[in-house]
Every structure is written in C-alpha cells, then in structure tokens.
C-alpha cells in the first residue's frame, strides 16, 4: 500500500502548499506585486496561533483569530508598505518585501524566542480514520478537505463573483476601473488583506508539516514562490495543480529515494519553469 | 529591371482563424519611397513584424537583395539591413542622446562585444553619432538625457539611430505620430533628406504626409494587398476610396 500512502501524503502536503501559496497567487499573481514577505505573514499566523493555543484557546478558534489578525496586519501593510510599491519595478518590490520579512523575523523571535514553536493538534485531528481500504491520519484528511473546499470557494469568488470581475478590472486598468466607480484602493487593500489571511491560515493548519521556526519566512518562501511560478502566475487552477504535483513529487521522492528527493523536486521545478516559462496554466491577461 | 532590394512573395500569417496576412506580394526597388496605408486592423503592423522577423510567417518568402532571410532572427535581419523605427518610444531614456546613437553604431560595426582595447573605436562611434545628430539638426541636444528631450526630437533621434545602422531597407512606423505640428516640420525635412539608396517603406495614417513622401503607395485591407500604384492612381482608385479614404479621410 506504499503507493497509496505516497499519493495521499503527497496530496495532503500539496494542499498545505496550495493553501499558503494561493494567498501569494492573490497578491503576486493578481495584484502583480513581488511579495517576498508572504512567508512572513504565514509565520505571523503560525506564531500567533501557537501563542493562543498555549494560552488555552482551542486550535480552531486560534486558527480563526490568527487568520483574522494577520488579515488586519495585511491591510495595514498594504496601506503603509505596499501601496508605494505598485508603481516601482520588480527589484524595488523584491527588496522592500525582503526587508519586511527580516523585520518580521526579528520581531517574532524577540517576542517569542528562537526555538521551534509547536502547535499541538486538537484531539479531533489527532486520530486515524478508516477510509475503506485502510486507515489514514485524520489531520491529513482534514488538510485535503480544507484545500478542496478553499479551492472551490476561491474559484467561485474570483471567477464567478462580481468581486472577482471588479478586481481583474482594477488590476488591468485602474484608471478605467476608477472611472466606472470602483474604489480601487479599497479593493486592493481588502484583496491584499485576504491574501495575507490565507497565508496565515495555511501557516497555522499546516504547522505540523512545515514546522514554525525563526527562519520559516525565508525557508519556505522558495517553495511558495515555486508553486505560484510553476502554476502560472495569477492562475488559481494552475497553483492548485502545481501544489499537488509538487507535493506528490516531493513526498514520492522522500519515500522512494530519500537521497535524491531534493534533486528530484528542484529538478522538476527547473524543468517545468524552463519548458513552461509562463506556468502550467498561464494567466490569460499575461502579456 | 534590376533586382529589388526587398521582395516579398506569398507571405501569409494567421492567428487561429483570423487571417492577418494573405499571400502578400510586395517589392521595394533600391531607393524606393513606398507608403503603406490601410484602415485599422488591415495588417500593417503584422506585415512590419513579419518583415523584421518578430513574427514568423506561415507561408511565403522574404528576399533581401535576392537572398531569402526567412530563417534569420530579428537581430540578424537588422545586421543584414532591415531596420525599423517604432511608433511608441523605445529609446534608452537614462542614456544620453549621443550614446543612444553611438551604441547603435558600435553594434553595427561589431565592436559591442569588445571588453578590451576599445577606447579609439568607441571614440569613433561617438564622433559618428555626433555628426549624424548634427545632420538631423539636434546637435544641441547630444549630451542631454533622452528623457529630457521634447517629443519631436525623440522621434528624430529614433530616425538617427535607424540611419546609423546603415539600413538597406528602412521601415518607418508612423514617424510623425503624436508630434505637435510645430515640431513636425523638422521630421518632414529629415524624411526628405533620407539617403537616396535606402529603400523606405512608410506606414502612416497621416494622408498628407504619405502623399507628399511616397512615390508609390500600397493599400492593405484585411491582410491582403488591395491596390498599389502612384499616389495619383491610388487617390483615384474607387475601390480604395470606398474601403479606406472614404472612411477616414472624408
């Protein structure tokens, strides 16, 4: 049954990647700002949730609160840090958000210490579940369910709602969007906050797979960027596909050839990016 | 008759079901002054992109001085002598006017790969750039940054760079578009003084300019050549008037 394990574990891991990266698809893909601080927002979420759980709050409440809080922090960051960046080049954006990441890491470690933060799972997710042909950890099934649910929700929100249409209009042509009465600034603030909240949510519920430690924001950033890049910048379905593909490749590599797993992973990433420079599913509006 | 500088046979291109160029036949004699006109969406820009190699044709051949250039990259075509100017500004904004031209001269002479022993050759590039700018009447601006230049002079600079590449065939993409009429005069003068051995294809919406400049006019509509002839013939062509002049120049 080793193959099923690989696929399921890969799927669960891919879902964590998706949940965190999809926020980056929002900020970097849709809003087109090189957001290297994305991992930092996920990290804040994880640390805050760890603190809350440590103080006796339930896991799910902590996840919700942390997501909300990071969403608010994201809104403030959009106003203070990101707004001046939209008109600048990629390098300025990369440097600025890199700097922000440093500041976040330093602040979190000075507040919470430099050790690894544990985020114990609630009892409901601790056990195993019988899935017909075998048993499987409830936590990983939960990840898969949440990932699928979120994918559906985002698809509805971005591709099917008026909000999504307005957002795309605002990104493609802010002046025109303003002319037809869209409050572009507000839209961007809300959207950016949403992207940060998604990062935090993923950081919290994925903490058992991507452990919270001082360099979390940098260590996993490459991973998140890669998912967005391989998927096609700004494409949700692409990110979903890429996250699962990369999750399975990485997990499979670790099970089957532990020595070469990382080569396999980054080799696949390189190959995918070289063969499809605009991603598995290039955004239609990308030029 | 002598061999044309540029000869195009059966050039075709489609994007999906949209035909943007269909069996286009065109030739430019040495020293030709040909205007390319046509309504919006007629395929003028596509044709230019096919000639420069930015787009690959589905069928047909392009010959420069009797030799096919279809397999060449856009850069190689430039080195062979097919040079274009751009409608929108593509100059090096942070560089001086003089260096904008000198860099092109260096590229033309193949010294742009030089890392060593370049001082004298570069000096020569600068000198040539200065004299070319002086010929076009913008000697006063050589040391200024492009971004500080009035729009009309930027268009002149664009022409100076193209000429510095010593083109055989020059594709002028709306050389006077957007230039205020006060400054347009200098551009018209520069166009009148283009070296006689260069074959020029001018894409232009300004009918006055085309009819003044061109000795032959090619009308493009829906990706095909609708008519070609002298300005007088084109002006009299009823089909052309119906498709084009009637619509935009009435």
């Amino acid at each position, binding site marked *: 049954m080793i193959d099923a394990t690989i696929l399921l574990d890969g799927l669960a891991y891919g879902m964590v990647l998706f949940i965190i990266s999809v926020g980056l698809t929002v900020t970097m893909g849709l809003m087109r700002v090189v957001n290297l601080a994305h991992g930092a927002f996920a990290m804040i979420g994880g640390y805050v949730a760890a603190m809350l759980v440590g103080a006796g709050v339930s896991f799910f409440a902590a996840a919700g609160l942390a997501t909300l809080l990071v969403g608010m922090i994201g809104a403030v960051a959009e106003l203070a840090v990101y707004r001046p960046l939209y008109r600048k080049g990629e390098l300025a954006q990369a440097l600025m958000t890199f700097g922000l990441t440093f500041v*976040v890491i*330093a602040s979190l470690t000075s507040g919470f210490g430099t050790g690894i933060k544990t985020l114990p799972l609630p009892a409901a997710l601790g056990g195993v579940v019988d899935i017909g042909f075998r048993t499987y950890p409830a936590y990983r099934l939960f990840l898969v369910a949440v990932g699928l649910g979120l994918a559906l929700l985002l698809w509805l929100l971005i591709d099917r709602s008026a909000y999504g249409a307005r957002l795309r209009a605002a990104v493609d042509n802010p002046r025109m969007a303003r002319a037809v009465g869209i409050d572009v600034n507000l839209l961007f603030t809300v959207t950016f906050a949403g992207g940060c909240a998604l990062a935090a949510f993923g950081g919290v519920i994925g903490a058992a797979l991507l452990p919270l430690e001082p360099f979390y924001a940098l260590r996993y950033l490459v991973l998140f960027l*890669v998912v967005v890049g391989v998927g096609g910048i700004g494409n949700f379905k692409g990110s979903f596909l890429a996250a699962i593909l990369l999750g399975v490749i990485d997990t499979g590599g670790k099970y089957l050839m532990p020595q070469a797993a990382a080569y396999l992973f980054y080799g696949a990433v390189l190959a995918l990016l070289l063969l499809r420079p605009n991603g598995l599913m290039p955004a239609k509006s990308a030029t | 008759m002598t061999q044309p500088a540029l000869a195009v046979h059966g050039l075709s291109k489609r994007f999906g079901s949209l035909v943007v160029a269909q069996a286009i036949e065109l030739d430019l004699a040495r020293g030709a002054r040909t205007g390319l006109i046509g309504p919006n969406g007629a395929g003028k820009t596509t044709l230019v992109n096919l000639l420069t190699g930015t787009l690959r044709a589905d069928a047909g051949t392009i010959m420069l001085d009797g030799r096919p250039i279809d397999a060449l990259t856009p850069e190689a075509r430039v080195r062979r002598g097919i040079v274009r100017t751009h409608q929108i500004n593509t100059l090096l904004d942070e560089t001086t006017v003089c260096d904008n031209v000198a860099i092109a001269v260096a590229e033309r002479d193949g*010294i742009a790969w030089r890392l060593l022993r370049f001082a004298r050759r570069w000096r020569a590039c600068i000198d040539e750039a200065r004299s070319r700018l002086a010929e076009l009447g913008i000697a006063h601006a050589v040391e200024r940054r492009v971004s500080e230049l009035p729009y009309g002079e930027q268009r002149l600079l664009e022409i100076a760079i193209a000429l510095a590449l010593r083109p055989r065939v020059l594709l002028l993409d709306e050389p006077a578009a957007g230039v205020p009429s006060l400054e347009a005069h200098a551009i018209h003068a520069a166009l009148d003084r283009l070296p006689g051995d260069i074959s020029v294809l001018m894409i232009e919406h300004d009918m006055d300019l085309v009819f003044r400049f061109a000795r032959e006019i090619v009308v493009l509509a829906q990706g095909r050549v609708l008519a070609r002839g002298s300005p007088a013939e084109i002006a009299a062509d009823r089909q052309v008037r119906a498709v084009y002049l009637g619509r935009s120049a009435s």
Partner: protein
Amino acid sequence: MTALSESGLRRLWHGLPWALALLVYFTGGGYLGLGTHALVMILFALSLDLALGQAGIITMGHAAFFGIGAYAAGIFASHLSADPLLGLAAATLAASLFGLLSGAFILHTAGVTLMMLTLAVSALLAEFANQAHGLTGGDDGLQLGRMAPLLGLFGFDLWGKTAYLYALAVLFLWSLAAWRIMRSPFGRSLDGIRQNPRRMRAIGTPVWRRLVVAYGLSAAMAGSAGALEAQTTRSVGLGALSVLTSGTVLVMLVLGGTRRSYGAFLGATVYVVVQDFAAEIDPFRWMFVIGLLLMAVVLIFENGLTGLGDAARRALAGLPRRSGRP
C-alpha cells in the same frame, strides 16, 4: 560637477577607498580578519553589480556562484594543490562555466520567472552540496589545510596580514576589470539591455548571448570572492550557497547603490562592520536593522548610500538635482 579642480579631485576620490584599505592593514590589528571578510564581500557585491546593476538580470540566487567558488577552492586545496593562486583560478573558472551554462538556460526568461529560476538553481545547488557528502562534507562543510605561500614567497600568517593583502590585491584587479567592462561598448550595451531590451533587439543586439556572457563574467567574479572566502577562513560551509547569502549580497549592493563606482564598496563595508557590532548583541536585532535599512533604501534613497552622498554634495554645491548641462 563642481568648479573645483576636477580631475585632481576625482583622482583623490578614486584613491581614497584604497588608501583607507591600506590604512586598515596597518592599524587594523585584531580586526584584520573582519577587514578581509569585508573585502571579499565587496568583490561579491561588485559581481552582482555587473549582473544586476549593469545588465538588469534580477537574480535572487547569486550565492550559487559564490558557493561554487568557495567549494571549488576548498576541494582544489584538499585534493590537488595548496597553491592559493591556482585554487583561485580553478574556482573562478568553475564558477564562470556554471554561470555560462545556467545562464544559457535561464536567461531566455525575464522578470519574476527569471527571479524564481535563479532561486531554483541555487536551491538545487545547495541541495547537491548537502547530499554530496564525499565531495563537500555535507553539513559539516570542508576544512582547508594550510595554504602554500603566495607566489611561493609570502606565507599565510596567524594574524591574517597576508590574507588581507591577498584579498585586497584580488579585489583591486577585479575592480579595475569591472570598471573597464562597465565602460566598454560591451558594458554600455548591457546598460541598454537593462533599460530596454526591445530597443537593443531593434539595433541588432543578440540580447540573450550578451546577457549570458555578462552572467558568466559576473559568476567568475563571484567565484573569485567565494574562493577568497574559503582560502582566508580555511573553511567552507553550506551557508555559502544559501538563499540568505544571496539576499545579503543584494542588500549590500542596494544599500551602497547600484552602477556606482564605489556603491558595492560602501554597502558591503557598512554591512559587514555594522553586522559585526550588532550581531554581538543579538543576531536577530541585526536582522531588524537590516530589514528597516532595506525598506528605507527603497522608499527614501533609491540610489543607496552613495546616492545620498551625491545628493549631499549637490546640495552643498547649490546645484539643482538633475543638472541639465549646457
């Protein structure tokens, strides 16, 4: 341009950093090791200035070449020869070959895709170094034995005096080369590609090929820097290849200012010195300071510290910000 004796002033200005570097040699004492490290990082930042500042190749993975240089020098010293110059040459060559090769693959792309490809290449390389225990020592890194005397004459002493001068000499030669490259027709065409690749294609520039060569040159410089680091500290670790190293050198360069004669010098020196002081207090507080500095560079003084200096000089001379010279 002030009305002061211009060429004399400029000559003085160009001599100043080197004079300071020599002053450190005589007065540095216990800080000579730190000084050597600063020289190495200046060279590394200078290499990035060629790729990023001049040619506009936005890379987040420049540590790949630094790391290759460091490991190549380490492996060379362990297995082939203890001669430092041969090791340096081998390391420089290895890094430049890898730069040409990887550049040939990734420089077809631009923007964010390129940024991610550079990240992926360096991550792949770091993973290789981590796994190839036999060659690189994996997690433990490599310890270099004693280097043979420079040119057979100058032994590496305990106080790092020879090491310092060795690094200074290599940096001097490379900065002369870089200075030439940036002013050559080749360098000017890179500057053009950075500003507007489309324009350069329109004048017949083979953009991809030129970028690959620039990338290879930059990689060679970075490889030299890595080799110096390995030889002068007599150790190589996985940190040399890490994303943090790529980020650090980016910070140094941007802090000092890109495409400026002494931007890399100022940025790397300030970074190394301040880090040394701050890290003794608390390494994470140091990250806070650097993070804030980076943000300030982007928001307030876009041309880095050297740009700030220019602005001050202009203000003193009472000149407008952008002088339209007559």
